[in-house]
């Protein structure tokens, strides 16, 4: 168990309390014991000097692929949890597109146990919507939630059957969990490997049009409205998608939505030269879409920044573009990228970043954390906003290196990551 830790003199940014001021934070017995202008500590308390540092409620990533069970050559729950901690995340939600998929209580229990054993960021399992991720009938949603699943999704694939999606949005209301969807109409996109448009046309690569994503976003919003369920839309990448969510929120639809760092920063031109490290799903889109995702993040249409951390072994990405798998790693670059290219470019301010990377993801998925209010769980991220560093994939804690951001100069990184009152990253 953790001893007492005093975070001394940092800029505490906690939107849950509308707080942005220099404060001391005392952590004791796994909880936030005291938050104040000057907090005294007993002599055995470990004091971390946070002068010129920023103290926030622990960052939460509701969308990561930890690949275990079945894809341990790409990532394990332990390496993923350590990568998360290094990236400043105190909690991550593990997607169920594993092999076997996380669609029953036993697998949920396995993920929870491996997550605890890793002793890094908390790992919350997300269960499948459909049994076997086959999109045919509901998985054991109730039993999975009772075991510890915090949401359901068939991520990696959409739920193509609208009737099944309707049932999921109804059934999940018994358990108060969000139904997360990877919105994509495969009849429009299954042959595609990148954004449909001029770049794809020139490269001779089949494209995925925005409409494939838009149609399912609109469908999901209509079904959430019909059922009263909570739809969580994953990795929104299109301008029409953002606008549709904005309008639905205006009508009172229970929807939360994600933006991923890469869709906030890169456009389809990053694929030029057939760069497989810029291949993901949904694909990088046009500069107009990037602008819309940024605007959606700024005005709160998109509640959450989530990485969609998708590790792949280098052998798998070392292939011709159309033969390579989708996805990039994100846990260890997200904070620096967002600080440098989203906050640093004035899209949002630092408190809003904390809102989107801690408070709202915790709230959307019903997790502990997302606040430093006294008595809450002692999950804290301390970041150094002035630290400059270069992205070096060889230094990742993740097992995989597939990032389009290698060599990027970033400003801002994790100093300490504290989970349940224990320092899990940083000396």
């Amino acid at each position, binding site marked *: 168990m953790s001893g007492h830790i005093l975070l001394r003199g940092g800029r505490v940014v906690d939107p849950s309390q509308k707080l942005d001021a220099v404060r001391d934070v005392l952590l004791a017995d796994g909880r936030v014991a005291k938050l104040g202008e000057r907090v005294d500590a007993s002599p055995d308390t470990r004091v971390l000097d946070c002068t010129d540092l920023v103290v926030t409620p622990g960052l939460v990533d509701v969308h990561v692929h930890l690949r275990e069970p079945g894809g341990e050559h790409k990532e394990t729950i332990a390496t993923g949890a350590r990568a998360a901690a290094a990236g400043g995340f105190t909690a991550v939600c593990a997607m169920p597109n594993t092999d076997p998929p996380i669609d029953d209580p036993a697998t949920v229990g396995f993920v929870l146990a491996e997550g605890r054993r890793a002793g890094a960021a908390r790992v919350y399992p997300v269960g499948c919507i459909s049994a076997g991720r086959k999109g045919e009938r509901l998985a054991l949603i109730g039993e999975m939630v009772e075991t510890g699943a915090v949401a359901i999704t068939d991520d990696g694939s959409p739920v193509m059957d609208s009737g099944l999606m309707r049932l999921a949005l109804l059934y999940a209301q018994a358990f108060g969990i969000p139904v997360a969807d990877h919105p994509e109409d495969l009849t429009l996109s299954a042959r595609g490997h990148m954004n449909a448009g001029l770049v794809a046309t020139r490269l001779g690569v089949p494209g995925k049009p925005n409409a494939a994503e838009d149609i399912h976003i609109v469908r999901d919003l209509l079904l959430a409205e019909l059922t009263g369920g909570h739809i969580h839309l994953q990795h929104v990448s299109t301008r029409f998608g953002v606008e549709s969510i904005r309008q639905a929120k205006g009508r009172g639809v229970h929807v939360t939505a994600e933006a991923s760092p890469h869709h906030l920063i890169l456009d389809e031109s990053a694929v030029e030269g057939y760069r497989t490290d810029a291949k993901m799903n949904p694909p990088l889109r046009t500069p107009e879409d990037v602008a819309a995702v940024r605007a959606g993040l700024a005005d709160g249409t998109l509640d959450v920044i989530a990485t969609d951390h998708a590790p792949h072994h280098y052998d798998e990405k070392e292939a*011709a*573009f159309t033969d390579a798998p989708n996805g990039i790693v994100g846990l260890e670059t997200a904070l620096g990228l967002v600080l440098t290219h989203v906050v640093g470019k004035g899209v949002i301010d630092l408190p809003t970043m904390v809102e989107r990377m801690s408070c709202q993801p915790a709230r959307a998925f019903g997790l502990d954390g997302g606040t430093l209010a006294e008595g809450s769980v002692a999950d804290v991220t301390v970041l150094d906003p002035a630290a400059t560093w270069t992205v070096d994939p060889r230094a990742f804690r993740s097992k995989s290196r597939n990032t389009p951001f290698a060599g990027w100069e970033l400003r801002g990184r994790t100093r300490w990551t504290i989970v349940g009152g224990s320092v899990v990253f940083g000396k």
Partner: protein
Amino acid sequence: MNQAASALGKDLVGLEPLSREQIVAILDTAEPFKEISERRIKKVPVLRGKTIVNLFFEASTRTRVSFEFAEKRLSADTVNIAAAGSSVVKGETLVDTARNLEAMRIDMVVMRHGSSGAAAFLAERIPSNVVNAGDGAHEHPTQGLLDMLTIRDHLGRIEGLKVCVVGDVLHSRVARSNIHGLLKLGAEVALCGPPTLVPPVFRELGVEVFTRVEDAIQWADVLNVLRLQLERMEAGYVPSLREYNRIWGVSNARLDAAPHDVLILHPGPMNRGVEIDSDVADGPHSVILNQVTNGVAVRMAVLYLLAGGQPEKAEAAKQGAE
């Protein structure tokens, strides 16, 4: 010959990255090489001692044989690898195939692969010269070059001509190489076909798009007619081959309505009676077999230039001068 001095750089991956001058240099270099194939002894020592691997992951007869003749007539040592029966079908990756070839100290690889970008992928990873013999739906640069050489032979120029590519442009590497090459040489380029196979986004490349072949024929000096593969019908892009022929097939009846003669090209293999009628393919304005002849000369020129040859020294090189 000096590798570093190649007029084309290390590889020929596509026509898009080439300059107008580089394309003209290839076409001009092909001129003296045409004559070699007309000799009784069809062999010159230009690439003597060079080892070339023809690595074909997709079936090909015409292109592979054309490259092989070009290589052999330049005295290179060649090895053919076809995907069927090679280690590729045993699960070996493209990277490993390339590294193994490299380990045998080859000089050039001519590759055809079903994935767009495969040629660039290989070129970035091995020091040998890489010639793209077709990568997915991306480019088939030597086909584009031989098409342009054939047009230039028959009409005396490229600049200012109106060239229309007819057919399955969406899936065609030939179409993309034609578009890039012809635009760089100052031609006007159009595309024609069912919009399922010629989507409007192609306009953004700076070309005209016709949906009706009659309009294309009215407009064009040259038609480059693409093969319509049976799979496109099976995938639902067109309802039937018969309907395709009735609406987009190039026939003498349609050509007779043109205001002037239209030169007919086809990269082969032809589906007679589908995209092109036999009386057109075998007619007086067809230069389809000239394309095949020019293919060997263009490929000789590309291999010679990649090996460091200078365009102006091609004539001398044929005589054995280094």
